[in-house]
């Protein structure tokens, strides 16, 4: 399955040697390194654990699960087993192993592994991730994300749905309620897709500041969002509720192909929207 491997190459910084890969994928000429940096280093970190972990950070249980998948295959997990490029390259390899296997039992084994990888570790987060990319990326990476999403959906259609929801999504961590938890935890949970059902990147926070006419302070996302709340908490709750509802719609749009996976994400976003509305109402009453 060369397509996935080729797409994986472009989730890495673009070197001039990658140009022929981009050409084969009909993506046009390679972007500047700075464009890659802005997208993958500052906005959309290409690691599954960021989107599937309850902490919204690199590593942790989500990465361990993926490393466990490698071990179950009898492979040594690479240092960054949950990196997008690694996952796509692994998918390509499993698809090839399945196709090249002459023994029917073993071929079925590879097929099961391939389908598990697709549903457990790719489709469980990439549709949301790529949807954000389509929204914010310049043309080259927009085309890349569209191609990847189309390829993933094609695989989903071809292999069929998985009976059970991906393990990553079976736990349903939600936003921390600031009335019961530290404010910092609440703010961090907004930036944690597995809790909020949203993928909020730097450019989103910048958009919020612009819309609410707030000062945008530079720093890590948690610092920025804290500063925005300190300027206009009610406005931010409003804005975030709208974002959550908009994400619920996005997730729902994938329901036909992704089934329960889309619903799990939609429910996260809806729960967030509900909490945010409740918080705003509480704040209004107090005012």
């Amino acid at each position, binding site marked *: 399955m*060369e*397509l996935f491997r080729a797409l994986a190459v472009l989730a*890495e910084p673009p070197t001039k040697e990658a140009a*022929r890969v981009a050409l*084969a994928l009909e993506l046009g000429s390679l972007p500047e390194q700075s464009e890659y940096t802005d997208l993958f280093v500052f906005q959309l970190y290409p690691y599954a654990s960021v989107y599937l972990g309850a902490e919204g950070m690199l590593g942790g249980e989500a990465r361990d699960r993926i490393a466990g998948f490698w071990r179950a295959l009898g492979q*040594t997990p690479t240092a960054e087993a949950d990196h997008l*490029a690694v996952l796509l390259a692994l998918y390509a390899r499993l698809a090839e192993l399945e196709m090249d296997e002459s023994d029917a039992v073993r071929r079925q084994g590879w097929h099961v592994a391939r389908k598990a990888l697709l549903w457990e570790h790719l489709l469980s987060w990439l549709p949301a991730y790529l949807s954000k990319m389509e929204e914010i990326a310049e043309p080259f990476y927009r085309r890349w994300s569209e191609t990847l999403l189309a390829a993933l959906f*094609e695989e989903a259609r071809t292999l069929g749905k998985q009976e059970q929801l991906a393990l990553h999504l079976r736990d349903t961590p939600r936003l921390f309620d600031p009335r019961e938890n530290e404010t910092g935890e609440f703010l961090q949970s907004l930036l944690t897709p597995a809790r909020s059902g949203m993928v909020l990147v730097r450019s989103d926070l910048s958009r919020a500041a612009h819309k609410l006419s707030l000062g945008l302070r530079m720093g890590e996302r948690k610092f920025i969002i804290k500063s925005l709340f300190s300027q206009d908490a009610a406005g931010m709750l409003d804005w975030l509720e709208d974002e959550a509802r908009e994400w619920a719609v996005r997730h729902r749009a994938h329901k036909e192909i992704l089934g329960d996976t889309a619903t799990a994400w939609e429910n996260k976003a809806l729960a967030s929207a509900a909490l945010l509305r409740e918080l705003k109402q509480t704040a209004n009453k107090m005012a």
Partner: protein
Amino acid sequence: MNPNELNERVSAARAETEARGETFYPGPSRIHLAAFPPKERWDDWVELDSKSWPERKEKRYMLVPTTCFNCESACGLLAYVDKESLQVRKFEGNPEHPGSRGRNCAKGPATLNQITDPDRILYPLKRAGKRGEGKWVRVSWNEALDDIASRIRKAIVEKRNNEVMYHVGRPGEDGFTERILAAWGVDGHNSHTNVCSSSSRAGYQFWLGMDRPSPDHANAKVVLLISAHLEAGHYFNPHAQRVIEAKAAGAKLIVFDTRLSHTATHADYWVAPYPGSEAAIVLSIANYLIQNNLYNREFVRRWWNWEEFLAVENPELPTDFATFELVLKNLYKSYTFENAEKESGVDARVIEEIAKVVATAGTKFSSHNWRSAASGNSGGWQVARTLFMLNALLGAVATEGGVYPNAWNKFVPKPMYTPPHPPAWNELTWPVEYPLGMNELSFLLPHFLKDGRGKLEVYFTRVYNPVWTNPDGFSWVEALNDESLIGCYVALTPTWNETSYFADYILPMGHGSERHDLHSYETHDAQWIGFRQPVMRAARERLGEKIADTREVNPGEVWEENEFWMELTWRIDPDGALGIRQYVESKERPGTRLGVDEYYGYIFENSVPGLKERAAQEDLSPLEFMRRYGAFEITKKVGAIYEELVPDAELEDVKEDRFSRVYTKTPKPASTNIVPIASPDPDAEGRRLVGVNVDGKILRGFPTPSGRLEFYSSTLAEWGWHEYAIPTYIRSHIHPENLAEDQTVLISTFRLPTQIHTRSANAKWLDEISHTNPLWIHPTHAAQLGLQTGELVRVETEIGYFVVKAWVTEGIRPGIVACSHHMGRWKLKDEGQRQMMATVALAHEGDEWGIKREHGVHPYKSADADTQRIWWTDVGVHQNLTFPVHPDPVSGMHCWHQAVRVKKAEASDAYGDINVDTHKSHEVYRKWLRMTRPANVHSPDGTRRPYWLMRPLKPSREVFRLPDNQELVGVE
């Protein structure tokens, strides 16, 4: 375009690109783990110049492979040759190398330090003053070669062949120098192996007829190491990466080491036994398998020589397997966990738990012992032998995850010339006392010379430093200082060392990127060759130049050995009258000397299966292919050769004896792999042993006298060591019963991961990391002595003492002390090697020798600015000088562990003080010699040594016959 069409398009683009010999996907990346430059860009690789940062300045490199020359592993290196300056800028791993797979330890990249070392020897030097006085004059290669060649020629003409000796440290090309010596008709090969690994070799050879193990660590379920393989063992880098792979896949790692080595820190089970008790533990595990019928009975039945054992040792019993099993149970029943605890101090319950883990391994049990306990203890060869017994019990022999004999995982391609076995026997290296010695009794040489057993006209050391490396270095100094014992001493060395100061000639040899060698090692279940080459020669040839002699491209007048030996051989016999010259004569241009291109061109063209075809795929000649990629894998997954059916074509006029050994009249088929293995004797009618009859099928078996795995060694039984004919536990010379109350054991054998004897000295990065060797001592032991870390201790051996700093650590078994042998380099004058050698004063009166440290190292000005940044002064203490020789009476291996007295230093003691009495050391030598069972008394057949046993340079069969006692050197 839909995803499926796009997939086809990308596949087609990849196929098209790769058909051009290029790489479609760029490296480095996570996609193919291609952390290496794609090979089609090795001619023009671009990297940013780190020194120009933040300016983005591009540097263009040519990448040229070679092979590391530090430890023996022969890992692949890739030299980055700056295309502008034509200098090597760095060394990284060669991804094309099947053994090391692009990975290296610290020593590989440090090759750069060695080739740019400001203190290295660049020109041939000849002694000007007295030996050891330190006065030198530069001479031409011609002058040196002519003098040395004429001395050797004279010795050969006057039938004094045994006065020419070559003593090797770091091995070079497989068999190269042995063939040179054979061409001269000289039995003059001497190796360091008896201070290194010969006891392990004995243990393996008695079982297998091959003297090294090749564990398939990566695929094992249980790995048992009696060594520190993850940091310093043989094939450390290739093996460590495979052990870790096994661990990652869930294998259990068991480590026996008295010291908390890095390897021990990775173990699932680490035990720290009393040194020398390892075989007792291993045998208790074997006994557990035997008593509980947990061994692979079918394997044992098919492959052990139990029938021979029963027939010879228990002729009254029926010769059937059930009887053998009963006898086996009886033989080993005393090796209980409780007895193992008594010997080792390791809790019997822990040993039992380990035994249960071993029992789960099945045929995926990989084990390894190399040096360590085998080389520390008298009888240490039984450690390797008992360890392999576990494999033999489990049937984990040449199985996936098991242990292979090295010869099946090694490929030594046949060269153009293979001279006949020399018709001479050198008793200085193969004395009558050691008929079963695995290797030359090299470390006894000064004592033999002093005893008048012979003398040497020309003595070469080759990247070897016996004064420092061997025990009892002052006896070496005494012998080297006596010109009546050693007429001309020639040190072939890239760098100054303690021994070279006593040389008559110092001839500068190349480092890893300055010489040719061809290697093959048993790093895993495969066969590969690795090519060491002068990097600048290959680089300039890529640029279109023609290089005829490696000196043209090496710094100063540094040469490589292969050209040197060919030239020396030519000059020994310039007109060919002695019949020597023919072995170094060009076939392409008769009458002229063979060159390295023709030599290797022949080998790669004719003797490496598959190489020609692989090279042709890239329009390269085989030599060009090897110059370009540096390594070639001949085959993978060799499998269990002993189970292979012997083809009918090899079964002409066969005879089978009562132990189902099958002998044939068919000559041995020609093979281009000349890897050394044992050579069992033919039958009385001259048929060769071709295999064994197992259940009605003639199978290949093992190259042992029985054709099977030798649980019972008739060789040991017949040559005077009947009590050791089967694997047993021998109490070490440092067993508690052999120590006085105030004595303890010093472990002196361990290496540091970043150094390799004296080979790696003057590699500044390595020296900065590791430059001292404190004495490891447990807190309880230190408290008894009132010692704290950093305080001085005096360590007294049988022949003297040394003064060293203490390191109080829980990482050592209480009551045992340890000191790495990698440190304590010294020199007598300030010049010479300045990064790792202390300057010392040498005191000498009669047999008393002393060393006083004048000062350690310090910053100095040189061509390398880093030498002014040397911040350390301490370079450790040279403990080996204070060790007497302890030759194991069977294997001949020096038994390194020392019985010592550890005391707080006296007021007059200073750090680095060494005191030795060489008279006492000679007495100890005599004491150990008396433990031997010489061939003239014990030989069962009137020969000096069992002919079947391996020997690095095997002489012709007729000289194996023992001469009369009066002609035998050393017999009183």
